[in-house]
């Protein structure tokens, strides 16, 4: 089966921007893509493993890419997180799909 990668632009917590390719056929989410490229040190992202329970993978979405609608648990977690903006999302709740080609995000500060 031909795998389809998409291009994502990620700005890390030091302000450095990275262009990365993310597989769409490995059931990966945005938090896992960031970890797979080691764009944030281990232990500072995906702390809860991706259960929308820690907000360590909070990202600001900078492009108009269509993303899955926010579920209750993500919304609740963001309501208790810090540095939250209108364009905040939890990376672990964004499954990578081909439609996300060109997604641009910035990783929120650690808290």
């Amino acid at each position: 089966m031909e795998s389809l990668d998409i291009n994502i632009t990620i700005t890390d917590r030091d302000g450095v921007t990275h262009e990365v390719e993310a597989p769409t056929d490995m059931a990966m989410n945005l938090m896992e893509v960031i970890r797979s490229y080691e764009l944030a040190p281990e232990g500072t992202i995906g702390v809860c493993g991706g259960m929308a329970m820690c907000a360590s993978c909070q990202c600001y979405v900078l492009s108009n890419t269509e993303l899955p609608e926010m579920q209750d648990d993500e919304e609740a977690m963001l309501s208790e997180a810090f540095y939250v903006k209108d364009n905040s999302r939890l990376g672990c709740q964004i499954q990578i799909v081909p439609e996300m080609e060109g997604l641009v995000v910035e990783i929120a500060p650690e808290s």
Partner: protein
Amino acid sequence: MIETDIIIIGAGPTGLFAVFEAGLLKLKCHLIDALPQPGGQCSELYPKKPIYDIPGFPEILADDLTKNLLEQCKQFEPGFTLGERADLVEKQDDGSFVVTTNKGTKHKAPVVAIASGLGSFEPRKPLIENLSQYEDKGVEYMVKEPEMYRDKTVVIAGGGDSALDWSIFLADIASSVTLVHRRNEFRGHLDSVEKVQQLKNQGKINLITPAEITAIEGEGKLERIEITKKGEEPYMVETDHLIPLFGLSPKLGPIANWGLEIEKNAIKVNNALDYQTNVPGIFAIGDGNTYPGKLKLILCGFHEATLMCQAAYKIINPGKRYVLKYTTVAGVDGFDGSRKEAPKAVVKAIQ
């Protein structure tokens, strides 16, 4: 001074299984954990969630895994120092270690196993200027002694179970309880949410949503806070106490200063042999260690704990012979005098 064979820092699944493996080698363990209950992340972060990759368990709830591990190791009578964070390790002249907690409890053993996962769970602090200045002067991140709030005015911030539960609890103790949350919705058990609704209707809890605490003030101690309701002008509220309850997040903490090699927020260990750190006698097992190819899985922690115990045996009993025994063959002899063993095969002639 608590004396034992292996001091285990962290009472999560890896630490608990280490108690069992150590017990098979007749080594006694004492566990230290910053959380008030054993289980680590399994009990603190996701007790009611299923885990699917524990060998032999197609599906098990994190809470049940903790219960099973406690049951499995109980005949080896582990000691527990809970609700205290291991802060300091000191090597003694006799080669042993003394580990001291933030509350001054001292533990002595020839071997230390750090099974601290991602670290000790520390309260997440809201971003309010000067907040640290008022810590323990009116600002507390957890309720330790509810009586200290008797007849005082209390503001609780947060929207999860602990914010709801403590608002309910303190409503009968404090002279007033105000609950401030960024949204109208709360994430908690349904009965807690309903109880808060009821207390609000009775005027026993003052609910302010959607709002945030945006500043705090006071001379030498907390006196008032600024509350900003969404889309409205900020206003000041007099209060004796502010309790921000925004959950806990794991931090490596003081272990970072123990002279251990740290890489990627984890402790480097020798995975070719026994998961020992660069300090002989100190091991790191489970999610808190790192080595080439490391996977943060509970099942890997179990394996690492087993090898660590074999190495600990050699440190504690130098030169003493031992070979690995199978529990099915040898049974399990508890320190409490209990014995588990496989039933003997029946030898009987068939006529």
